[in-house]
């Protein structure tokens, strides 16, 4: 099995997490931190297991459950880009969608190791874009706008659950890390939490009330690094690249999980992509999946692991 190292694990998780963050529909800092905290707690037992491969080899249903979960997360990603980026691109939406799918189809054949290697330069590109974004946003930022109400915290916690949908992915990938990768996952959780909090604060300071709907896209629209020039296209470029990376990672992980169910399914990444597309075409919209399915799945999966482990312990006893 191809191995990845700890820094690569951090990079791929962070990039995937940033895609979730940039596509989020609303960012409410207290609600976001609350939901994120709950989800981390839910996933702690899972992350401490560190042995997905053995568990999935014994319980095939776990592999199928995970594969289904990743397919839905991928479908949600496709719906997210359909609703946000496609209308803003210069090509016709159908053409843009076809191009994205073709690129994902090509990259999905490259395998998880290529995805891991690709994560380092992609992260460098992301940080560069973040620096440009920060430069532009800082000019318009007003600290007085930074007021958070805690009344609607629970209501706003729901979109925050989206940020935790890649934690099961982290657990699957932990089995492929050369050494103990738990520390990388911990760093990733902290970095993503910090990035989410930073972005929420920046959105609030820069956009004020406008940041309630698609905060990242609003932020990029309002923060321009140079006067008289607009850099939206650059941010859109990064947004699309993050999406390709996210989908490629999910197809790779899905193929890996299916490979544990049956070795012949190990090269099924392109088929996983097609399944994601099919799921995206059958489901109504990204918001519905995000609001209903993801939080449930994020809870069901950690609990299913506990169940599988207890069944195993009972059988061993």
């Amino acid at each position, binding site marked *: 099995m191809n191995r990845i190292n700890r820094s690569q694990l951090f990079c791929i998780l962070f990039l995937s997490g940033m895609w979730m963050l940039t596509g989020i529909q609303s960012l409410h800092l207290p609600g976001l931190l609350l939901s994120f905290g709950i989800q981390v707690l839910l996933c702690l037992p899972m992350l401490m297991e560190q042995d997905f491969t053995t568990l999935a080899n014994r319980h095939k249903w776990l592999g199928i459950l995970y594969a289904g979960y990743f397919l839905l997360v991928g479908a949600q990603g496709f719906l997210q880009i359909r609703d946000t980026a496609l209308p803003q691109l210069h090509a016709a939406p159908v053409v843009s969608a076809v191009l994205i799918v073709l690129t994902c189809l090509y990259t999905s054949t490259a395998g998880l190791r290529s995805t891991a290697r690709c994560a380092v330069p992609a992260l460098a590109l992301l940080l560069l874009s973040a620096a440009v974004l920060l430069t532009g946003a800082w000019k318009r930022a007003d600290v007085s706008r930074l007021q958070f109400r805690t009344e609607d915290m629970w209501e706003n916690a729901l979109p925050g659950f989206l940020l935790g949908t890649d934690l099961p992915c982290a657990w699957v990938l932990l089995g492929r890390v050369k050494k103990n990768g738990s520390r990388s996952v911990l760093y990733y959780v902290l970095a993503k939490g910090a990035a989410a909090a930073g972005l929420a604060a920046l959105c609030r300071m820069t956009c004020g009330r406008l940041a309630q709907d698609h905060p990242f896209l609003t932020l990029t629209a309002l923060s321009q690094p140079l006067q008289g*020039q607009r850099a939206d296209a650059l941010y859109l*470029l990064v947004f699309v690249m993050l999406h390709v990376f996210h989908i490629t990672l999910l197809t790779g992980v899905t193929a890996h999980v299916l490979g544990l169910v049956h070795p012949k399914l190990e090269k099924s990444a392109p088929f996983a992509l097609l399944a994601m597309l099919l799921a995206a075409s059958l489901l109504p919209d990204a918001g519905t999946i995000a609001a209903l399915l993801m939080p449930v799945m994020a809870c069901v999966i950690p609990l299913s692991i506990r169940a599988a482990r207890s069944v195993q312990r009972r059988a061993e006893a």
Partner: protein
Amino acid sequence: MKLPSHLEETLAVLRRQCNGSSDLLINPVTVGGISCALVCCEGMISTATSTELILSPLAAIPCMPDSTALFDHIQTHLLLSLDRPVAREIEDVFRLIYSGFAVLIAEGETKALAFGVQGYDKRSINEPSGEANLLGAHEGFSEVVRTNMSLLRRRMKTPLLKLELSVMGKLSQTDVCLCYLTDRVPPQLIQQIKRSLQSADLDTLLAPGYLQPFLEPKKNRLFDSVSTTERPDVLCAKLLEGRVAVLIDGNPFALVIPKLLAESFQSLDDYCFKPYYATFIRWVRYVGFLLALLLPAVYTAVCVHHPELLNSTLLLLLTKAEADEPLSLPLEAIGGLLLFEVIREAGLRLPKVVGGAVSIVGGLIIGDAAVNSGLISTPMLTVIAIAVTAGFIVPDLNPVMTVLRLAFIIVGGLWGLFGIGLLGMAVLYTMCGTSDFGFPLTAPMSPFYVRGMRDTVIREGFRKMQHGNFTVEEYHEQN
């Protein structure tokens, strides 16, 4: 086929197998009272050397009881040449004859003695045309593999440098030399390369390109994972890092395995300049690579799809320049680049005297005429010129850059930065996925190795670099 014991039979086999080829010289002679024949290939041996070192001593040999005693006498009492292989097969005799050996065959003997008296015309050692430098040595490899081996040995006077000669090509019988430092090279790499070379079932081996596909296991690669060099000093530096080189007789280029992308941005001069300047030059190369690859595509995409990215002055300037152009921007860019490729190819293939004239006609007359006639705008011509010139900074990646540049222009012209981003991701995945013998092409950038940054992002001084012998094995990834 074994060598027959009768001289006449042996000579008949030789004549039959070479089909009366004019360059095979068979000289019957009596040596020490035994009937012999000295066989050689015309033009491959030095007449003066063979007369002085072989013919005169052979003529002075006293009478011998039989051919075995004669051969024993020659081998133990005479030092006719330093390279004295013994051939027992007809195929070996032919290979030695056509490699410039004089072969002595005697009546009643089932082996032949060969004497290295090569004297064919060869090119002298010149400065390499493709890898010029300012402060390093000005010697490059030549076409003769043994000369190239000596160039390496002169720089590495250690028994750890192993030079393994073998023969490849069923018809060409080309000498191929595997070079490596026994204490630096990963043992499994040597084994894998030997296996790859054995799998090459070639008739002839005329250029490194014949062998390269067998050293790159996966097919249809965009990026090479085998590098070439024609500089012995560069090759020594690579061998010191645990790489393996393959020298091919008849070609002045050495194949080096494994290749890292970062190497394409390094030159020998980097290690002669002060670190701050070497680092600066290296970053110029990185920027140059990006300019060569993306500048025409980004210019086209921004002008056609994203004019909001330009400031008003530049936008007005470009609008004015492009207003009267009959062709669209992507077509202008593709046309300009194709024109350049035509001129470059013509300059390269024609004799040097005419090649210079073609450059003048192409560069000055056609370029100037195209702008004046309004076929191509001045800003576009400037962009193309910058991109093409920047491409010369990294000649190693020129084939990839040439093709990808056109592809980026097409997607940039059609779909703007979005298209460039998608193609960029595909190229990035291809690049990151390239890995042969377990060495990723993109190391040490990805996978990231902090220690590798001292000769990638910066160029550290030798005082620091000398600590801890670096070998490429650090970048090896197990499957």
